[in-house]
């Protein structure tokens, strides 16, 4: 009988400690102290026991009953403090309330990413107005007088000014490069700066061509600067944009305002350089032109080309953003379509 009591004590304590809520605890209580409970059963048996043992067993059983009652009360209190007042069928799969739904334009976001990177490398940010003149768009930049880009095919000349010359022949700037001369005329070298902005060209539009586009140019002017240092700069920028190391190569390219001029390619991120349809199976994607400012450009900015050199890159943000998000149609950028714009948060 004693062993039986000890067994009830051991298993009862275990059950009480292991009950994880009050309902379970109630069941445990019933199994121990209820009408059919194991302790109750013992107490019921006492009258039938040998008289010599009755007192001892009775005392022990009653002690056990008190012990369990105390323990269950304590456990109940413990459980009820832990328990939630919230109905257990509270639906946790209901979506959260979203904060304000605004967003910067994806090109603005790219522009700011670049600004942050270039500023961390000590570049100043410079801005020029959208309307410029032939003087800054072409004359200063070593565009020969007969360069086809000067003809209305490419540049939006302003009505009433299209037949004037130089500083009075106004246009929506066809590129940003003219801004570099403005900066250099008002700052002393050595210097390094970026000049983001919009540019416009008179072209027919399709999914890959726009009349308005966003460019980002960077220029370093110093007494010594080699194009291989420029390559380091480009790698730093790309790793910021794409969040990983991007292979870069420079190859020969021609632009009137640089000499030497480069086309700068980045390794295709889709195939890792192995060749795929995105990179036309060459493993490289043409990214931006760059080069050393042409001596005539430096002269236009009032600098002596024998003393100063530099490095220039022009990044087409529309294209870069298209690559970043795999946007299929460049015209979406200026559509003001919220179905498109609200995707970029």
């Amino acid at each position, binding site marked *: 009988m004693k062993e039986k009591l000890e067994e009830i004590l051991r298993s009862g304590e275990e059950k009480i400690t292991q009950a994880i809520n009050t309902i379970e605890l109630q069941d445990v209580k019933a199994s121990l102290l209820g009408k059919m409970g194991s302790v109750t059963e013992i107490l019921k048996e006492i009258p039938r026991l040998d008289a010599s043992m009755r007192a001892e067993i009775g005392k022990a059983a009653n002690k056990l009953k008190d012990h369990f009652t105390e323990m269950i009360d304590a456990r109940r209190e413990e459980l009820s403090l832990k328990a939630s007042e919230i109905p257990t069928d509270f639906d946790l799969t209901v979506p959260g309330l979203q904060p304000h739904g605004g967003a910067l334009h994806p090109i603005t976001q790219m522009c700011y990413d670049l600004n942050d990177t270039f500023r961390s490398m000590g570049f100043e940010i410079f801005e020029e*107005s959208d309307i410029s003149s032939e003087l800054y768009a072409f004359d200063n930049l070593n565009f020969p007088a007969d360069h086809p880009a000067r003809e209305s095919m490419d540049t939006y000349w302003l009505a009433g000014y299209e037949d004037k010359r130089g500083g009075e022949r106004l246009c929506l700037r066809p590129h940003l490069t003219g801004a570099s001369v403005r900066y250099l005329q008002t700052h002393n070298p050595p210097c*390094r700066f970026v000049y983001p902005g919009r540019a416009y060209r008179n072209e027919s539009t399709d999914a890959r061509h726009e009349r308005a586009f966003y460019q980002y140019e960077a220029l370093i002017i110093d007494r010594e600067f*080699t194009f*291989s240092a420029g390559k380091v700069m480009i790698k730093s920028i790309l790793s910021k944009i794409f969040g990983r190391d991007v292979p870069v190569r420079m190859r020969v390219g021609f632009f009137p305002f640089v000499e030497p001029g480069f086309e700068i390619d980045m390794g295709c991120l889709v195939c890792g350089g192995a060749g795929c349809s995105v990179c036309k199976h060459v493993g490289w994607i043409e990214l931006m032109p760059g080069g050393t400012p042409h001596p005539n450009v430096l002269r236009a900015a009032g600098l002596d080309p024998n003393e100063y050199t530099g490095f220039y890159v022009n990044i087409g943000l529309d294209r870069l953003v298209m690559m970043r998000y795999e946007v299929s149609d460049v015209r979406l950028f200026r559509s003001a379509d919220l179905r498109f714009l609200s995707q970029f948060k």
Partner: protein
Amino acid sequence: MKVSLNWIKDYVTIPPELELSRLVTDLTMATVEVEDATELASKYENMVVGTIVEILPHPNADKLKICMTDIGGGDIRKIVCGGINMATGMKVAVARPGAMVRWHGEGDLVAIGNAKVRGEESYGMICASSEIGLFDLFPYTDEATILDLSAFDAQAGTSLAQALGLDDIILEIDNKSLTNRPDLWGHYGIAREISALFDLPLSEFKPYPPPGVPSLGVELADTTRCFRYIGVKIEGLSIKPSPFEVQSRIWRVGMRPINAIVDITNYVMLATGQPLHAFDSDRVNGHITVRRAQESENFLMLNGIELSLCNEDLVIADDIEPIGLAGVKGGEKDSVLPDTQKVILEIANFEAIGIRRTSARYETRTEAASRNEKGIDPQRCDIALSLAMSMFAEMFDKMAVTGYSDNYPVPLERKKIDVSLDWLEKNLGKRIPDDEISRMLARLGFDVSIDGDAMRVVVPTWRSTGDVSIPNDIIEEVARMHGFDRFDATSITATFEGSINQPKIDIDRKLREYLATRCGMNEIYTYPWVLDAYMNAVLPDADSVLSISTPPSPDERYLRPSLIPNLCKAVSDNLRYYDEFKIFESAQVFSSRSFSAEYDKRESLPLQRRNVAGACVGGAESYGVLYREAKGILETLPRFTHIEPYSFDRIIKPAWADSVIWQNIVLDGTVIGSLGLLSKKASLDCGIKNSAVMLFELDIDALTPYPSRTNKFERLAEYPHTDYDISMLFDLNVRWEEIYNSIIGKKSPDDLLRHVSFVDEYRGRQVPAGKKSITIRLVIGSLKKTLTSDEIEGCANAIVKRLTKTLGADLRSTASPAQGREQEPNQASL
């Protein structure tokens, strides 16, 4: 530009170990962008020469035949064919199962199967030239003509590509990357570049000795526009096809074979880059003169288009009229015709700009013009002459030269460039040994002499027309020959301080980030030009508006004087998909009101200001809420973007605004922006119905950024403050500004009233007609002690009394919602 590798191999021997992929990569890295390299033979896989051994009728079709065809080594197959010209013993092109063909020369390429044709097995097909892309080489008139290859010396079973000599590789070169390299516009030029890059020998053309024949008497009337003119009169010719290999080469790089005479001129142009023209000399009246056209002089081009020329155009003329538009296109009258037997062959060099202008003026983009406008060296006429004369001699037994002249008054001189080797090293970032520099430049045709630090480079004639002219060009030549990837990367170290503080630049970013992230607006980009419809709807009387001379479309000529018109277009467009939204744009606006020259006194730029504009859009009845929303955005803006605050006033109504809901934004007495509801008329004109559009526009350039943050610390309240709401009835014309001013009255510093704020306005059934109920929240508390409820009531009651007395208000209810609340964060402290 398409380049045939087999053709290149005429001029430079490409060793077998030089793999195609390396050739393509190195050319791309150092010279021009090779976009593609196509194996021509891959298009003719599974196509072989077959010999028809027997022709049987088709049991189920009258128009079809069964051709028993030997496809090599006596392997005779049954092929069903619908052609009209089959004959026993004829060699034909057999497309075996798996070959890609174009049915009847139309539609997409399809793979040939082993199929039954009208119940008869057919092993592939016997092809017409158009079905395998060879129509230009083998033209026919009846579409049921199959390709007859009997003239080719090829056994049955020979692959078609091999039989026709099509085992070639075609390089596609990006024309843009060639614009500054006139020397590369021909196979010989590309071969010369390959010979330099890979140090391979280049074959040379044997000079054509001037023949001892009478002069043609060509006159160069304008030597500033025509630098050289070679004329050769050739007799004993006839119109016949040129040899297949000549036709094939012309065809492989994208031109069409015509006849032997024309093919020679095209072949020589494709080989050397020098355009040629052949006039039928029987139709040339008298002598040739190269002169300016007269104003309105007529010229009938080879393609039948009649031009009215101007004095800027250069023409080739005979004694009567122009016979060619110099360097651009030949004339119809004197071109090579079916009965031509004598020609005057023209090999000439023209000034590039004039060619480009004439070509653009008449929108005549020809192969000749696209080469002549790049600036070709006149010496190239010599190799073109050499090649052309040897081809005439080869193709025409009875050929005789009966007239010749070479007018070349001022030979082109080779450019000389002096370069310091130290300077070169400084710019390259690497010292390349002198002899290596010499060798690399010599391979490109430069003559180099070095004396100490001084290097003199003499540029070859074919690079002397502007391409290579200054020392920087030599950096590029050395760098690309050395290999751009062989220069060690060096880091950039110098530090600059200009970027540390740029408040004028930062303000635009702060504004955009504030509007997007705090105000929940979406940023949009629009074009700088405005559709007339939106201009008229929004700014009907705008003055000093600039416009574009060649606008994207006739109704998009105006350049925006304000961001509002395009913003309204964006609103209108988005209302198709959304009922409620908020958008903004930050961009420049333009005006001819004033001009200035900030950077160069020769320049005169119009007024250009950066503006920001926004729209809050909702249902037609929501204008009240939208007004408070838009105004809240503007009121809070200076605080969050760290600029000097502005105020609101009514000075001048924007044209687009509703006559009641509008305000100006004013700084130092100047209007720098506006806020208002888009008027009903403007809304309808913009195609906006049943929506309220609250707009604002602000001149960012007029804002004054603080140099740093300007928040001030305010001690936290030691004693509890109580929120006390009162609702009172006012006449409809009483404005909040008056109520507010009346409440704060003559406040002393230790007064118990800490804050006053507007909670809401109610007009409706529980409010008598002509009245509105305004709920005002008072924050009451002392800086020195905890107030009793009597003291709080006393403060509130005094305010209620004052409002009753000054503004005739009636109290509706009071309530003290909570004790010790924090003040509304956006409410100005009293």
